[in-house]
């Protein structure tokens, strides 16, 4: 079947078998191997991507559901100039990366959480990333990285609004 959807900000047209899932479409047909396969049964979460800004397991999404939707994978997380996003930077700074296999999905899980809740508590971060398994890190430094990014974004917003206020006052 023919499908048109937005992948990492670009309109993408593909032809794929109806039975194919998004995970295989990304990895085998589109060459985007940043999205990993850990179980193929929707239990581990290392294939998670953003579908219309929500975190979903790509192994459970049939390609037929993609028409007209927006998909973001780890390949679409860097800034437009190619530099790392603040969340990616924060993962590195906090030592949140060990074997790295779950990290693409963890970064997307963090991004999905911060989109919905820009100011999450520790427990909310734990809940927010609990759909993605990690065997190496014990999650602590991943949680630290997401928390730090929330703080950076909050300060940025605050500085921005202060600047806006100054401009308005001038």
């Amino acid at each position, binding site marked *: 079947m023919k499908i048109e959807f937005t992948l990492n900000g670009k309109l993408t047209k593909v032809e794929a078998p109806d039975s194919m899932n998004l995970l295989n479409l990304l990895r085998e047909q589109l060459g985007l191997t940043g999205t990993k396969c850990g179980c193929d049964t929707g239990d581990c979460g290392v294939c998670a991507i953003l579908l219309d800004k929500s975190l979903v397991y790509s192994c459970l999404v049939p390609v037929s559901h993609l028409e007209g939707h927006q998909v973001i994978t780890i390949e679409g997380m860097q800034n437009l100039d190619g530099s790392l996003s603040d969340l990616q930077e924060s993962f590195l700074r906090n*030592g949140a990366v060990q074997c790295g296999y779950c990290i693409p999905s963890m970064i997307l899980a963090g991004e999905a959480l911060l989109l919905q809740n820009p100011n999450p508590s520790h427990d909310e971060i734990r809940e927010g990333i609990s759909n993605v398994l990690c065997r190496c890190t014990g999650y602590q430094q991943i949680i630290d990285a997401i928390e730090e990014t929330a703080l950076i974004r909050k300060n940025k917003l605050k500085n921005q609004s202060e600047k806006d206020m100054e401009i308005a006052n001038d």
Partner: protein
Amino acid sequence: MTELKYVGKRSRPEDGLEKVTGKARYVGDYFLPEMVYAKVLRSPLPHARIVKLDASPALQVPGVLAVITAEDFINHSNFGWPVKDAYALAWKKVRYIGDPVAAVAAVSEESARAGIQAILIKYEALPVVSDIHHALDPDAPIIPDTDAPGTGNLTNSHLVRFGHPDPILENCDVVLEGTYFFKHQEHAYLETEGALAIPEPDGGLTVYANDQSPFINRDNLVTLLGLPVEKVRVIQAYVGGSFGGKDDIGYQSSAQAGALALKTQRPVRLVLTRTESFLASYRREAMEIKIKLGASKDGELKAAKVNLLVDSGGYASMTPLCSWRASVHAAGAYRYQAVHVDAKSVYTNNGYSGAMRGFGNPEALGAIEQAVDELAYQLERDPIDFRLQNCLTTGDVAMTGNTVNQTVNLAECLRMVQKRSDWDRKRNLYASNQAGTLRRGIGVACYFHGSSLGGEGADYATTTLKVEEDGLITLTSGLTDYGQGSRTVFMLIAAEELGIDIARIRIMRPDTQTGIESGPTVASRATMVGGNATRVAAQRLNQVLYWAAAKAFHCQPNQINRQGEIFYSPNEESLKFDEVTSLARRMGLSLYVQGKWQMPVFTWNFDTGTGVPYHCYTFGAQVAEVEVNLESGKTRMLGVWAAHDGGRIIFPQGASGQMYGGVAMGIGYALTEHFSYYQGYPQSLNFHDYHIPRANDVPPIDCNFIQCDHVDGPFGALNLAEPMMISTAPAIANAIFQATGKRWRTFPLTPQVILKGSDNPDLDTSNACKRGLGIPA
């Protein structure tokens, strides 16, 4: 401790950039032109003789290019160390569900799956050995078919003989006897096992594998495929977690893919499915540990006797060595007058067991730390005070009779977690009458862990450094990184010793053609052994540079001063690093060096059970706080406080990451990870029936390192990856005892155990059989 420029400072993981951008390539991420896919036919029975195997019908399936059996290898694909009882593909019989029998290469995964289904195979079912207690019965069906070191189903035995515990135990004021049970634990790395084998134009083979030890893999391929060593190259791809789990299974997968690549003359990729990984790979040994422990009424531990019965499963793999490590730790990090340990490992048809983080010590200390706690309660002593009275300190004699001369900070670790966890207040609070459904408790455990291989084998590593023409320095190590951060550690050590900007250092991927053979990457030995080798290489390179600078300055090398990359003469003349390397080249000196480091030699006598098992140890303690729901049986973790005594920390974020990850793995081991077999049928086939901790199962972890400069370590560092999980499970069991007043002496402490005392919650034989038989291809 003196402050250093790189060592001990915040730094980024060397390969982090590739990992956070999704660019790191794991085996399953390789797609080559003409690449074909391999699938493996696996045994649906736990124990059977292969009476007929005709693989040729697979070749009739469209898309199938080749099929192999044991007969396609040298010596029926027999391999293995320390016991040579394994096969790349089973020969004549199968010994567990998931045992590989044949493999197919085809143009697509679907064709490969159809190919293995077309293979004609007939089994004659044999009686199954599933209960370790009956494995050595005179009428037990015999599982091994090669010369095992024991007889019948005995895989191996070990002993420790220090003094004579029997007469001492007879005179002890209190004697505790207990039997402790441990289930298998699955590594559950998120990336399954795999290999990509590429035939070379000269008839050779290159294999990209997610193995732990590429040189062992290469040597196995040489033996099994009959190729000269120079024609086989193994490159370690990025590895998505291992924890001891990607050794033997990795060599097996590589051999299967390798043989198919030679036969098809196409690149062959084999990646196991999750269910295949659960069925076919080895896991932590199940164990039963019997302890007899005596103390005086004033709380002095006197003597211990420990018996270990270990489930090796269908093959030996690393069980002979894991059970040895368990035996030389089995009485714990305490002073005794006498200790005897007897360990036996037996063959069964319960999958097969091998190396996993801690290598027998999580079981050994999981048992003794519960027993010591029970004794402390019997003597009405605070569990931390009781441990402080008895724990090893510098110069004490360990349970194996050897004197521990290194600086021991175990007592400091215990005091650290006591203080950090607010132990005294919480213990008193939870000891007072608790009512209602939710009960809280706090518990402690401590550990020692022999550093590196000890009596398990030759213990060395080699690092190479080369100054390239563009001024970058290339580093290779024969030891590997599967996520634990050793590459970053080697770079930090090299930069520190060379006194250069770390940005100059490029570390190569582990590769048998560029690195130097360094033994296996196991036993948390990379930092200490590989780190020392790196330091030696850097010292050798520095010597060359100092000669060059001294010649230019007309002075002696020892008169030169360094400020970072600048070399200063006694007259304050200066030369930059790049100028010095150019001078060295012009002098005709080589800027390629190798540094080898070997652990000091010591001896353990396996026949008498005496000697020195390890050159040195790491120590530590953990406190766990829990809340048990008496109605649901569920345990909620409230917190873990951990302190580790492992010398100087080289890469702080990496070290903390090891501690957090180890504690989380210990939480799973204690509460949910239940890999069991019923009549040889595995009860877990995927993550929905094997639960590793999710982010919301793990509490805040308080991470502490008691640092000192250890005389043998690089910049004073010892090691830390494995020990981090050892104390977590017993600390949790001891906390659950305070909360509930009960000890079950078994792991995991699932709700079924808490509510019913039974640890066999889901032995649904019909379902298990069906699922076992329905092995996905």
